[in-house]
């Protein structure tokens, strides 16, 4: 089983709608990182969360880490075509700076 579960695997959202992607671990996370990937390209760093209850925002994207540090969510408000891509969460599960990644959520924005 995956140590880091992402849901949903894919998401089709109408432009302008809000959406949420989740990332869940059975272990307490030392750090949680959100990335975005366009097909065939490298990962672009979005946000890093380290403290329980932490929340960060950048433009229309908000990421949260729960108090237990086992679940994170990425919320996009008023989605735009530029938000389309694959979103991956990466987590430090062992406190050794090595990241375990989820399998990703493919986001499609339709007009």
């Amino acid at each position: 089983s995956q140590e880091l579960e992402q849901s949903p695997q894919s998401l089709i959202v109408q432009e302008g709608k809000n959406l949420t992607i989740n990332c869940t671990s059975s272990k307490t996370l030392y750090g949680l990182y959100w990335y975005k990937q366009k097909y065939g390209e490298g990962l672009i760093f979005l946000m890093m969360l380290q403290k329980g209850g932490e929340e960060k925002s950048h433009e229309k994207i908000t990421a949260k880490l729960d108090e237990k540090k086992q679940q994170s969510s990425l919320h996009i408000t008023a989605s735009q075509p530029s938000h389309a891509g694959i979103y991956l969460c990466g987590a430090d599960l062992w406190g050794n700076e090595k990241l375990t990644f989820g399998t990703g959520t493919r986001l499609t924005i339709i007009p």
Partner: protein
Amino acid sequence: SQTIHQWPATLVQPVGSPLSLECTVEGTSNPNLYWYRQAAGRGLQLLFYSVGIGQISSEVPQNLSASRPQDRQFILSSKKLLLSDSGFYLCAWNRGSNQPQHFGDGTRLSIL
């Protein structure tokens, strides 16, 4: 500012041939360096990790090896490629503890 370069972008190799992928980082010193493989429909798998010149940690047994001949250079190699080595290879760096990793543009490797 820091930048990471990976090449080539695309590579098609026959089974049994050697491999050398290169990654360099500019604008920083003594970075941590990482090689990942991303197979279709799967997440990123950490292959190798380096905290300094000549220091390589292998995460999974495989047909590949890594070397770090210079502070900001990380090389992924194989003596004989297998079909199962196909995939998208990504290099990344960070400054150390509790710092985000930054990724190169990747190399898509196809084995024929």
